[in-house]
């Protein structure tokens, strides 16, 4: 109960600061739209090639938007010393970390709310509920893992360089399973289309639970030691 209260308080604080400061969301939105425009020109996309290349473009944009979003999550706290101020309360590092990760997840979902419709407009990508579900499932695990490495990287001077080096290799499972699932969904398959072959949604959910637990356990050592 106390854990949930702290987590929600930290996430609400982060979102309130973001809505007032408008640091990250406008930059993420701009990044997403520009990436799609560049992809459109670079791949010379048309009505037939757009949907075919969409899964790859979706994950590329999502991964780099995630790096941008998670990198700021802890760096901003470190800059003003507020992370230490939070840790010096009895709230506990795991609950504080969970709040930060929840806030980052919501931010990335907001970014996806721009990305997916923009893909439908610019690339004529067929966005179905199955695509949305896949992206949301991958977002949770990526956010928790990304935040853990962002917390680690924020303690170093080369944090902008360290975060991609640490996070990208461990995001590969999400990208591999997610891109396959999105490919199937975009080619007309629904929730059940991939089920006999590999159940990507269950696999993504497993990854989410695994990384959520592992990163929450590791948070105490990363943040408070």
């Amino acid at each position, binding site marked *: 109960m*106390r854990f949930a*209260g702290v987590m929600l308080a930290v996430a609400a604080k982060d979102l309130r600061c973001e809505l*007032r400061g408008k640091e990250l969301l406008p930059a993420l939105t701009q990044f997403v739209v520009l990436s799609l425009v560049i992809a459109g020109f670079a791949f010379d996309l048309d009505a037939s090639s757009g949907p075919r290349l969409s899964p790859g473009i979706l994950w590329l944009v999502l991964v780099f938007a995630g790096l941008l979003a998670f990198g700021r999550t802890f760096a901003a706290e470190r800059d*003003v*010393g507020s992370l230490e101020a939070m840790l010096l*309360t009895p709230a506990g590092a795991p609950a504080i970390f969970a709040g930060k990760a929840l806030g980052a997840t919501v931010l990335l979902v907001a970014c996806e709310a721009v990305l997916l419709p923009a893909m439908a407009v610019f690339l004529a990508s067929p966005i179905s509920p199955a695509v949305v579900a896949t992206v949301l499932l991958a977002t949770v695990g990526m956010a928790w893992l990304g935040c853990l490495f962002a917390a680690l990287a924020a303690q170093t001077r080369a944090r902008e360089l360290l975060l991609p080096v640490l996070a990208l290799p461990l995001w590969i499972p999400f990208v591999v399973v997610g891109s396959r699932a999105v490919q199937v969904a975009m080619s007309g398959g629904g929730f059940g289309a991939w089920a006999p072959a590999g159940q990507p949604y269950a696999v993504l959910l497993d990854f989410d639970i695994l990384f959520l637990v592992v990163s929450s356990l590791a948070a105490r050592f990363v943040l*408070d030691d």
Partner: protein
Amino acid sequence: MVLGPLDLELAAGERLAVLGDNGAGKTTLLRLLATAARPAAGRLELLGVEATRERERLRARLGYVGHQLGLYPALTALENLEFFARLHGLGRERARPALETVGLGGVAHRRLEQLSRGQQQRLALARSVLHDPELLVLDEPDASLDAEGRDLLGALFEGRSVVMATHDLALARGLCHRALRLRAGREAGDPWGAPRAGGPSVRPREGAGPVPLPNGRAAGARALG
């Protein structure tokens, strides 16, 4: 900064001023006492609790203000305190009286970035006493404070043990029972008495009572326990 062997005892309600030149180890000592850093060796017991093992339990009984204030520029003064009250597991209603205590009731709804540095320092002091801690650890709390703000320190210290680093000898004399001078991370004698050659020297002073403040008022120290 390496802190040398230091045998420090502080009685309940006692106030200790930590003095010394830049780089003497004042901040390192205070960060250890605030559980913001871990000692590489030795034993640290605070309020009867082993500080390195039970940090979260201890943090509910400690208040700390460091060089970095650790507040959120996008939040108002009141919102900052409400947030930290929630991290302490307290109700939001604790925030308003704490603001009034430091004379910031009139600017409760102003964002931190709209407050002067002195007002921000007062807000950080309000946060440090929000949960009614038994021990206050303050790193140059007089920084940026005007004369009225400095007078507030005496009121905040009422009934609490305090360890305070400062460069202002007059303020230290007015608010604290004892002083400890550090030089290159080691104890360099009592600045209010004769320098001592070595050995454990920082002991609770017998019969220490209220100390007159520079403006003639009494600081109101509690009798030593």
